């Protein structure tokens, strides 16, 4: 499953004011993967040490989980509108 490539945030205020943010997540993923790849050996060693000490903590799983969670966000959409149907006070966040 592909992670979301963009995150779009649109905030609309009264009288047509507002702004939008377009965040290219496809630039963030390679950096995130790089960080995970670098940290993975250390996490594996730490998990092995803790397991041998009798205190198992799934450090590797916790390190990989954010990537899975962010991948799952594809299609997530939150649209909140307040103050009437003329669009006053509207916040829209989408992961595409």
């Amino acid at each position, binding site marked *: *499953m592909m992670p979301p490539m963009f995150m779009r945030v649109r905030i609309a205020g009264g009288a047509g004011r507002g702004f939008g943010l377009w965040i290219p997540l496809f630039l963030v993923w390679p950096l995130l993967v790089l960080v995970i790849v670098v940290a993975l050996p250390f996490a594996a060693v730490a998990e092995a040490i803790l397991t041998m000490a009798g*205190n*198992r*903590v*799934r450090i590797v*799983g*916790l390190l990989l*989980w954010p990537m*899975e*969670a962010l*991948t*799952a*966000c*594809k*299609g*997530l*959409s*939150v*649209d*909140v*509108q*307040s*103050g*009437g*149907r003329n669009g*006053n006070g509207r916040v829209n966040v989408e992961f595409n």
Partner: protein
Amino acid sequence: MTEERRRILNMLAAGKISADEADALLDALNKRQRAGGGPAESPRVIDKKDLKYMRVTVESLKGDNVNVKVPLAVLRAGIKLSALVPKQAYAQINQKIAEQGFAFDISSIKPDDLEQLIDALSELNVDVNSAQGDKVRVFFE
């Protein structure tokens, strides 16, 4: 007994839905029957494999509207996170939950339970209309 009622009662008997969910479905069925004067339409039946999102929509007469679409994969990822929590932390987490007034054991959450829940929710359609004209809908698509 209509076919729709029989299906809801069969799901309840099989444990696929809770009593509260069966009650909500039967209420929705009764309202449709009273409004239409006849047997209600079949509840939305979606192939479980096609379920991808949980939708929550709120429409109020004051113009405060909320529309949320949550991929089911996010729910699955949340369940997996609970499986990654160290067992040593379960007691503390359960205590914090109990302080909020909920008797819940986080160690009882298992990925299989989520799949069963999603299977049962494939036919759930919650429609709430308040006296003030506010509408709340929760459904899966």
